[in-house]
C-alpha cells in the first residue's frame, strides 16, 4: 500500500504528465462490479458497473429519487451492497474511509447549532488529530487555507447557521478539503446555490482536480456535467450509461433515464424538465 500523502496530488505529480494516465489506469479510484444496493429488502439501485478513474471528475446524473445519493453513500460504506461489489481505492468502502471525504447537502444540517465556521472546517482534521488531543497549529493553518480557497476566510468566526445556503455548502467543501482526500464525494453541492457560490465551488473543485484528487459529484444539472466533468454515470434505479461525458449523455439515454421529463430540442440536444 502507498504511503498516505499530505498533498492529494502528490501521486499523480510524481508520475509526471506524460505517463500519468497510464499509471492512473492501474489504480482506479472506484470500481463498481455489477453492484446492487438496497435498504432492507427494497433494491434502490441495481447493476451499477463501471470505473471511476483516479484523477477524474465524475458526475452522477439522474432524476431525483433515482439513486444518486444512495450511490454516494454506498461508496462511503453507509448503505449495504447486496450483490456485486464496490471497491474504493482498492479496498472495501469502510476501510477506505480515511482517504475519502464526503460533502453532504448543507441544508441537512441544523442552522441553529452553536458552532462557528472555523470550527466546522476544523472538523475535517479531527480524524488525523486523533482522540483526546486538540487540533494543533498545523491543523488550524490547513483549515484556514481551505476556508480561503472557498472564499470565506472573513467569515471564520461567524456562526455556521448565519451563512447563506451556498456559503454553508462552501464551508462543507472546505471541511472536506482539510481531510486531504484521495477521493472526494459531493452530494448535490449546487442545489439552490446562488451564482457567486456556484462559481466559488467550481473554482475550488478545479483546484482539487488540478491537484490530482478524484471527484464524484451528484447533480441534476446537465450543463455542469458537460462543463466540469470528465465522465458521467447516468442513473435512474439502474445504470443507463457510464463513461466519457459527451459519449454518455446522448439523447436516447437521457430519454430512457428521465422518461417523460426529457424534451428533445433539435437533433441531438435534450433538455430535462424539472421533475
Amino acid at each position: 500500500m502507498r504511503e498516505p500523502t499530505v498533498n492529494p496530488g502528490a501521486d499523480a505529480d510524481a508520475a509526471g504528465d506524460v505517463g500519468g494516465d497510464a499509471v492512473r489506469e492501474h489504480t482506479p479510484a472506484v470500481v463498481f462490479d455489477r453492484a446492487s444496493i438496497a435498504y432492507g429488502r427494497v433494491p434502490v439501485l441495481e447493476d451499477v458497473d463501471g470505473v471511476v478513474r483516479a484523477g477524474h471528475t465524475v458526475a452522477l446524473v439522474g432524476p431525483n429519487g433515482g439513486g444518486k445519493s444512495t450511490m454516494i453513500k454506498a461508496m462511503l460504506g453507509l448503505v449495504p451492497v447486496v450483490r456485486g461489489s464496490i471497491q474504493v481505492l482498492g479496498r472495501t468502502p469502510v476501510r477506505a474511509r480515511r482517504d475519502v471525504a464526503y460533502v453532504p447537502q448543507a441544508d441537512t444540517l441544523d442552522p441553529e447549532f452553536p458552532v462557528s465556521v472555523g470550527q466546522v472546517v476544523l472538523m475535517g482534521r479531527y480524524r488525523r488529530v486523533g482522540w483526546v488531543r486538540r487540533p494543533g497549529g498545523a491543523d488550524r493553518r490547513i483549515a484556514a487555507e481551505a476556508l480561503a480557497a472557498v472564499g470565506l476566510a472573513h467569515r471564520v468566526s461567524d456562526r455556521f447557521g448565519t451563512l447563506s445556503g451556498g456559503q454553508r455548502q462552501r464551508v462543507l467543501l472546505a471541511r472536506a478539503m482539510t481531510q486531504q482526500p484521495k477521493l472526494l464525494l459531493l452530494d448535490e453541492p449546487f442545489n439552490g446555490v446562488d451564482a457567486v457560490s456556484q462559481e466559488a465551488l467550481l473554482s475550488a473543485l478545479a483546484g482539487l482536480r488540478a491537484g490530482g484528487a478524484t471527484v464524484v459529484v451528484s447533480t441534476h444539472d446537465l450543463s455542469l456535467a458537460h462543463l466540469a466533468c470528465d465522465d458521467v454515470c447516468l442513473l435512474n434505479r439502474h445504470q443507463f450509461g457510464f463513461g466519457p461525458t459527451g459519449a454518455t449523455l446522448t439523447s436516447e439515454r437521457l430519454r430512457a433515464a428521465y422518461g417523460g421529463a426529457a424534451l428533445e430540442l433539435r437533433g441531438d440536444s435534450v433538455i430535462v424538465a424539472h421533475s
Partner: protein
Amino acid sequence: MLNRLFVEPFALPFMQRALVEMLLLGMLAGVVGVFVVLRRLAFLSDALTHTIFPGVVIGYLVAQEPGVVPGALVFAVLSAVLFTMFAANRRVSQDAALAILLTSFFALGVVLVSRQRSYTADLTAFLFGHVLTVDSAEITQTGAVAGAVAVALFALRKELLLRAFDPQAAQAMGYRVELLDLILNLVIALVVVAAVKAVGTLLVIALLVVPAAAARLLSDRLAVMTGVAVTLGMAGGWLGLAASYEASVHHGVRLASGATVVLALVVLYVLALGVGPFARLLWSRARGRLPPGTTEAAETAEAAGAPAAVDAGERLVARLAPDVLKLEEHGR
C-alpha cells in the same frame, strides 16, 4: 440581609452537605446538559430518569439505603444500552420505543414499591429526593461521578461535537457513531443516578436541561455555553436551598428543597430568556460584526430567528412569554 439569606443557612452541617451536593450536581449537570440540549436528548434523559426507578426500588428492597445507587446504576447501564440499540435500529421508531421502555420500567418500579408497607413515603422519597439528608459518602459518590464524567467528556469533546452537528459526516470519516452515542447515554445515565438521592428521579431532568437551555439562549459558543450552564446550575442549587431554608425557618412555609431548586433554575431560565437578546447584541458588537441594515445582517437575523425550542418545556416558556420573544426581534 443578603448574609442572612445566602450565607447563614449554610452554617448548619446538614445544609452545608446539601449545598456541596447541589453545587457538584449543578456543575456536573451543566456540562452534560450542554450535550443533552445540542443532541436534543431531553426526552431520552427524561426516559432514563424513569427507567432507573425499578433499580432504585430493587436496590432499596435488597440492601436498604446503601443499595439504592448500585441498583440505579445497573438499570442505568441497561437502559443506556437498550436506548442505543433501539436508536440504531431503523425499523423501530425511537420515540415510541422510548415511551414503551419508560412506562414499562417505571410501572415495574411502582409495582415493586407498592408491596412495601411504607409505600407512599418511600415513593415520595424516590420521586422527589431528600437533599437535606445526604451524607458525606453520597457526596463522595457524586464527586467521583463528576470526575469520571468530566474526564470522558473532555477526552471526547471533539468527536461528540462532530457527531451532534453532522452524524453522517462523522460516520463517513470512520467514527463509530453508535459507540459515541452509547458513551453519551451512559454519561447521562450516570448523572441521573448521581442526582437521584438529592432531587429524586422526576426532577433530575430539570437539572440537566434547564441550565443548558438557558445557556443556549445566552451564547452561540460551545465553551461559553458550558461555562454559563455550569454557573447557572450551581447558582440554582444555592438559590433554591437558601429559599427553601428561609421559607421553612423564618416564615413557617415548608418548601421541598429539591423542587425549590428546580423552580430557582426555571426563574434563571426565564431571566436568560429576557436577557439573551441583549447579551447576544453586546457579544456581536464586541466582536465587531456588521452593523444592522446590510443584507448579511438581515440574513443573520433570519437564520438565527427566535431561539429554537429545545424541548417541550422551553416551548411552553416561549409561549408564556411572547413579549420577551418580540423584544428579542426588536433587539436585533
